[in-house]
């Protein structure tokens, strides 16, 4: 029972992160019909920017940059968060403007290959010494190390605790808020209507007077901001950070991509659902079956979904345009 609850809580926190990243994949696919492979590198950018900001901001309030004894004031943490979001959406805007927009009318394969190129470029630029460097770093703690819950199960020697750290709650709450905001933005605002129109049919949307390029830019900025948020929350939960080109980051992006496909790529609610499903399959599979195959469960699920319902759980069948 204790282990079940613990696994459940971890799955919820990690599922929120997958969902945040999956949203970026799914939004870009919804509008441009291509997979933005550079998206996982925006997560890395968010993570490493959080680190760079943190080690520069902490000395300002008289704390040690790498091992602060107490967490910084909450406005500083929030400030770093906002700055990371802003810079990540700027990066998303620039990538779209410089790499993808010139290929707007090119065959889709060209854009796809460009996306892989952009991803490799970002990974390797990130490893340069004057950018982030190629060594792992430890993220200083920006939040108090509280445990909101510590429930004992069993007695004596075999006593086990279910621990709910503050950071897990914050991940869950912040990503929930961001997803809610996105949902409102897409379904309740004029901009959202424009976005859906572009996604439905780009040419007709343009004929209706919708500024297509601006809508696409905004899609990239929104998706990248969510990815930046995921990067920030990820390093707060797992403070020992791998170097920017480490395969773990690629795998993180890949799993979020699987989440988007499982939920139905192009569907915003599907991405959130997919994120949680992937995290549950991964965590419970690792606990109850074997941790040797934790990635196997995720990708087997992908194959299964593609066989049974190729459009994903919430995706609607799309007729191939002629």
């Amino acid at each position, binding site marked *: 029972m204790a*282990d079940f609850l*613990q*696994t459940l809580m*971890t799955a919820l926190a*990690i599922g929120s992160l997958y969902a945040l990243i999956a949203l970026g994949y799914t939004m870009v696919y919804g509008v441009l019909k291509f997979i933005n492979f550079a998206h996982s590198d925006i997560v890395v950018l968010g993570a490493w920017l959080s680190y760079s900001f943190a080690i520069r901001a902490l000395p300002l309030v008289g704390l040690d940059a790498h091992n602060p004894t107490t967490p910084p004031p909450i406005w500083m943490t929030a400030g770093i968060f906002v700055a990371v979001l802003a810079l990540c959406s700027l990066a998303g805007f620039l990538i779209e403007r410089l790499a993808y927009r*010139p*290929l*707007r*009318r*090119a065959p889709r394969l060209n854009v796809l290959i460009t996306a892989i190129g952009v991803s490799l470029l970002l990974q390797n630029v990130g*490893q340069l010494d004057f950018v982030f*460097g*190629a*060594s*792992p770093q*430890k993220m200083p703690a920006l939040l108090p190390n509280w445990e909101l819950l510590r429930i004992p199960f069993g007695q004596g020697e*075999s006593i*086990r*605790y279910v*621990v709910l*750290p503050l950071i897990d709650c914050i991940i869950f709450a912040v990503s929930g808020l961001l997803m809610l905001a996105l949902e409102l933005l897409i379904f309740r605002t004029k901009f959202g209507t424009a976005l859906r129109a572009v996604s439905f049919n780009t040419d007709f949307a343009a004929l209706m007077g919708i500024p297509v390029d601006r809508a696409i830019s905004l899609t990239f900025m929104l998706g990248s901001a969510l990815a930046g948020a995921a990067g920030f929350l*990820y390093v707060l*939960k*797992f403070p*020992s950070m*791998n*170097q920017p*080109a*480490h*395969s*773990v980051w690629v*795998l993180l992006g890949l799993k979020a991509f699987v989440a988007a496909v499982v939920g139905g790529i192009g569907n915003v609610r599907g991405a959130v659902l997919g994120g949680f499903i992937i995290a549950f399959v*991964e*965590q419970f599979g*690792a*606990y109850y079956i*074997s*941790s*040797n195959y*934790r*990635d196997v469960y995720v990708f087997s699920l992908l194959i299964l979904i593609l066989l049974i319902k190729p459009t994903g759980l919430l995706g609607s069948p799309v007729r191939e345009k002629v």
Partner: protein
Amino acid sequence: MPTCFATSDSESCISLARDKAPTCLTKSTTSLRQFLRLSKVVGIFLLAVTSLTSLGCQSRVASTDEIVIGHFGSITGSEATFGISTDRGIQLAIEEVNAAGGVNGKKVRLITYDDKGDPREAGSAVTRLVTRDQVTAVLGEVASGLSLAAAPICQENGVPMISPSSTNPKVTQVGDMIYRVCFIDPFQGSVCAKFARENEKIKATKAAILCDQTAPYSVGLQEEFEKAFIAGGGTIVSKQAYQAGDQDFSAQLTSIRASEPEVIFIPGYYTDVGNIALQAKKLGLKVPMLGGDGWDSAKLGQIAGDALNGCYYSNHYSHEDPSPRVQNFIKLYQGKYQETPDGLAALGYDAARILFNAMKTAPSLSGKDIAAELAKTTGFEGVTGVISMDANRNPVKPAVILEMKDGTPRYVATIAPGE
């Protein structure tokens, strides 16, 4: 698509689409643009070729009065201290031999390439050392997976390679050009199993294993430990795996917690081990952990702090060893780098000195002659013990067990082969 695009090729179509007002281009401007683009490409190509050849020429000029040896190691990445320590050990040995007049009157020069702890980078670094820099011998790597990536390249090109600290048996099985100066995992695994079974503080009969399934070192050591532990009368109650660089170990650790082991064997590298220890502490897991020489880094204590108190690992040497050859080395190393050498620095030093020893007696500096001399090494007094190569090019040496106390490793015991 407007008809005016129909005559031009697909490339100019893109450039037209980029200009928002689609106007018809006459053929002549199109070809002019193509010509300009072509000349740009040719220019870049020529520039690249000239710079490459000039680089190549520079490095190929090897003067006859020096010996160039290569080192590939993880100077950056998750195992950065492995490469840095090894490189420092090698540099120290080179400084020493050059101060004493070099090898047979020739000065030794070292070329070091960073492989970032990535097998692909290791392969290209060694290819570069062997083919472009044409080194006489190669030293490296620490991680067995990276040595395995590089060894076939050295073997094919007939360049002797000495791995200072790759313990997986497969490394030297690649061929007769590949040597090492450390013990191998069948021995290390049995040392760990014996210690877990017999140490007063552990006396374990039930062990759990958490292994890095992406590292040949970790998988190999895990198998050897399992074999030896079961042969000694123990049982393995849980076998879990992670991948190098993983951040979340909660599923594995909760699973291990449920199986109630008396010791957890973690044959991983220090960065991951540090993270595992921190998360195990958060989960309230108080079982002692045990590992191999992959733990050997000052960073381990910095990452894990007191989360590893009461945990043990096997290693090649202890800086607390009072014997004069160890203490002299430590004094030399501290004089140059202002830090206490870890086992990898000591092995790097030994690897370089064994190489110079073989070069001194070899009839020529060809790969074959050096390798033949290396195979004859017997009773070489190294910092990490007396080194004699066996028929499989592996030395037979004792191991030490260290205990983590508030972030620093302290000497506990020495276990010799055959004990």
